[in-house]
């Protein structure tokens, strides 16, 4: 038999993970790696991921690629896998602590957040001082991606984040509130409706990802407030970029899941061959797969690409 490998994603409903799986499957075929895929039922379902890791060990796999739902909670199970001699690589979402995995291939999520935060502030100009901002976050357990993007947005926008490892300890009066979306549309819609009920003069929305942004937009449209609000997001999937073209989303930080997956498979193949482990990007504690801000309304001092280029690079 060839080299065994596992890909464990948070869900297999989010197009991001669907693409990641496609990328990994294609690369695995190319390199003759025998890939098995697993997924949680919903974002936040860590128990399924634990069981998946155990199955991979039982199955004699050489390595595991994982996007962890509970970035702290999964650590001991990851340790079991590493102790059993498997290479464990975190994709997209760093573990907490980040060195609990052998390597991390991910977007620089803090940077992704800073980009959209800075863009929003620059776009609003003078009005940025008295904006009403809502945050549509991920899950109650505040996994690393969630914290990095949320706090990154604040840094980019110019809000005092207090503890950068914690969402919700800020006291800036411009913040209307935080709510969780589970990273899907329905959750995005509910959370948006909740925030609107708190304050319907909201005019800036940070969303954890594009499915949540789509849900938020539906909620706004239903009450005719879609024009008043600036939505920013992270992902850069093809539908998301189209939404930027249409003005539904103002700007989005594009990430590259196919690359994460392909690199991950290659790393496992290499590790199986001679035990080499992947190296992080210079000056960072993870391998940065890159991020680009996509918008058709570039703002001063914030580097971005337009939607044409975004569409050329998009996934899904």
């Amino acid at each position, binding site marked *: 038999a060839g080299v065994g490998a596992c890909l464990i994603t948070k*869900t*297999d*409903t*989010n*197009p991001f993970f*669907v693409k990641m799986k496609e990328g990994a499957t294609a690369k695995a075929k190319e390199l003759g790696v025998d890939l098995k895929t697993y997924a949680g*039922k*919903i974002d936040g379902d860590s128990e399924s991921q634990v069981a998946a890791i155990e199955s991979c060990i039982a199955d004699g796999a050489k390595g595991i690629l994982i996007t962890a739902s509970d970035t702290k909670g999964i650590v001991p199970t990851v340790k079991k896998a590493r102790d059993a001699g498997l290479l464990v690589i975190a994709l997209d979402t760093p573990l907490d602590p980040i060195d609990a995995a052998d390597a991390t291939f991910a977007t620089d999520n803090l940077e992704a957040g800073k980009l959209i935060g800075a863009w929003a502030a620059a776009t609003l100009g003078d009005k940025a001082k008295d904006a009403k901002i809502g945050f549509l976050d991920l899950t*109650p357990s505040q996994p690393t991606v969630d914290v990095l993007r949320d706090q990154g947005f604040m840094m980019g926008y110019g809000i005092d984040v207090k503890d950068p490892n914690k969402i919700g300890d800020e006291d800036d009066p411009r913040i209307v509130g*935080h*709510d*969780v979306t*589970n990273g*899907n*549309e*329905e*959750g995005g*819609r509910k959370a948006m*409706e*909740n925030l609107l*009920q*708190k304050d319907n003069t909201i005019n800036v929305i940070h969303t954890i990802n594009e*499915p949540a942004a*789509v849900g938020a937009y*539906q909620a706004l*449209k*239903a*009450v005719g407030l879609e024009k008043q609000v600036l939505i920013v997001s992270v992902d850069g999937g093809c*539908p998301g970029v*189209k939404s930027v073209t*249409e003005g539904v989303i103002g700007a989005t930080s594009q990430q590259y899941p196919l690359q994460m997956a392909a690199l991950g498979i290659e790393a496992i193949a290499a590790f199986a061959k001679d035990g080499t482990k992947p190296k992080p990007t210079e000056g960072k504690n993870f391998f940065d797969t890159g991020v680009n801000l996509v918008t058709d309304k570039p703002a001063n001092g914030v580097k971005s690409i337009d939607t044409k280029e975004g569409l050329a690079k998009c996934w899904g």
Partner: protein
Amino acid sequence: MSQIQEFEKVLSGSDTNVAAFEEHGKSFVKRAQHFLHSTPAAVPLIVLVLSVIIFGIAIGGRFFSSYTLTLILQQIAIVGILGAAQTLVILTAGIDLSVGVIMVISAVIMGNCALTYGMPTLLAVVVGLAAGGACGLLNGLLVAYMKLPPFIVTLGTWNIVMATNFIYSANETIRDADVDAQAPLLHFFALSFRVGSAVLTAGVIAMVLLVLLLWYVLNHTAWGRHVYAVGDDPEAAKLSGIQTKKVLMAVYTLAGLIAAFAAWVSIGRNGSISPSAAVTDYNLQAITATVIGGISLFGGRGSILGTLFGAMIVGVVSMGLNMLGADPQWKVLLTGVLIIGAVAIDQWIRKVSV
């Protein structure tokens, strides 16, 4: 043939009047009790009115704005329709864990038929409805003919339909703008009407009409009575000549069909068609509405109007808490307290009335 026994001969002179105990006090309270007892939907209605009043006082005029009140209706339209489907099933002492995913897959099918395969939209809707009905039929066959427990059957079909949904759709969301451009009829239930200062969507109206229709069917047709009888005591129903299997088949199929109808309404509400809506726990919400509405999980008791009120109670409470600015977790906590509270009041009123 032997003779009639001596002591039975006196019976010819016995009292032939209908027993007529004196009716006791006709006070207002007694009348109210009797009314509540004989009108199962009245209790959730009262709870509903009470919660509107309480939140109205706590929040003030903003809560009574037609905007807020109609928004609540819009928010519960889907759960209300699914709750109606659930009610039919629960009345037969069953449960349907699959209505939520049947709705999602039906929406995906309607969308794909209209947009990907380019069918005329009306045909696409019919295909979607048929798909939902077929899922329900499968549930019905397994429950009625294989005699499997409904909980397990629909837990099974829930998994099956959910997976089929993701595999079939490859998780591709159909965008709002595309639906609008190519198959606007799918957005039919987003149509909104202004009645005075209130804004009603076609979806909300459809929910209310559907519940009224089902109420009529359940209470004023033979089939409706059979649904109650089957849930009440299936053995007795069978012995007294009801075709229990056919009734069960019809109920589950109808539940699937209604779920598919909810799909059409949900496309109107969500704009886009997203397979990943399958992960939302619509079932639990529909069951909650049903049970808060006073439908007994043991079958045969309750009024479908109660389900409508049950859905509204949940909607009012969650909107009210939002407007009071409750933190998400505190909201979850209070929702829990309120679920229990609503049913406790219900039970209390019923007890008084016996």
